[in-house]
């Protein structure tokens, strides 16, 4: 099972979403395996099997795109004490590095495994 997943209504599902778990029918037969990428055809097939909810992996395909401006502004606010307006002491460098890394992490999203 994927670490991050979300149950969503089938009518909210859209092609390209990835299943975080297998979907079983009433008899326990696997209809779609874990990791399957939904298509219009498979969504229609799930509807025919009376599947109401589907477990979707929360990855790039399912999460809303990052609002880069809002993220950058929020991070700048959290780091407002990082010494940019004070004397640049030695500790400011580490804080500034952390600031940059966090920004990269939030904006880039994916971390290589």
């Amino acid at each position: 099972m994927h670490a991050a997943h979300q149950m969503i209504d089938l009518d909210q599902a859209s092609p390209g979403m990835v299943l975080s778990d297998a979907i079983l029918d009433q008899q326990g037969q696997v209809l779609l395996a874990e990791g399957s990428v939904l298509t219009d055809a498979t969504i229609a097939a799930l509807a025919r099997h009376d599947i109401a909810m589907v477990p979707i992996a929360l990855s790039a395909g399912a999460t809303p795109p990052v609002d880069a401006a809002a993220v950058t502004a929020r991070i700048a606010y959290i780091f407002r004490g990082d010494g940019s307006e004070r004397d640049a002491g030695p500790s400011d460098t580490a804080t500034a590095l952390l600031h940059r890394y966090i920004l990269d992490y939030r904006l880039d999203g994916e971390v290589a495994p």
Partner: protein
Amino acid sequence: MNLLTIDDVRHHLQDLPSLPVVVMELLGSIDQEDVDISVLARKVSLDQALTAKTLRLANSASSGLQVRVTTIQQAITYLGFQATRNLITAAALTGCFPAGKCPGFDHRAYWRHSIATAACAKVLARRMRLNQDFAFTAGLLHDIGRLVLVTSYPERYSAVLARRQRDDRQLLEVERELLGVDHVMAGALLAQHWQFSDTMHHAIAYHHEPEAPGAGFLATIVHVANAIVHALDLARDDDELVPPVSMVAWTALGLSQEAYLHVFRETEMQFEEMSNILMA
């Protein structure tokens, strides 16, 4: 108003809620290997709420167990003594201090921050090949002095929080100015009062000045973990403010940017799961 002295805070420690005896024993013995595990498992099992929470943590995906454990003894068998001890400590501490007495103090944000720092310190310790369990517990407890001040001086601490918000300054500075003592001193006192090991005591006492002589490497880990967690915005505090990061501590860890990105990711994943259980 008069400033407080360290002795004032010490006198009030008696009035604090006490931890379950078994948890006191666990914390007091954190660097001992010769604890009698079966006795301990029995003692913990007497506390049903504590046992239930501990087992939920043990069975969560982040612990990596392939089997489902149903007793403390099984958890120790499969996870190891140190890891189980962490889970028990986390489960006990998060329920120990009463909430809601100090206006402006957000208990949930406090615990979110502490749990996240515990997770991050553990991740960092693994990267540094240090004892992950010490790091976890030190991270969880690093700000416990705030709870001491909140519980002993709710009104005065409320004023500190209001001033901090109004002036938008680092909490530590405002505590010193308005109270005369700060959460680091209070935490160190509690660590002595609860008879924590020296390692843990130092990590709490020096987490804001890891470059001080005698601080120890655990203080460095907690210092950086604390800053990372503030920076990741995990406590959901609108006024979140990253404290200055010590260059000495940062350099001592010597991690690359790529390593940090992994640390961020792992911290968020572990935090998500632990907080769901502990804050339920």
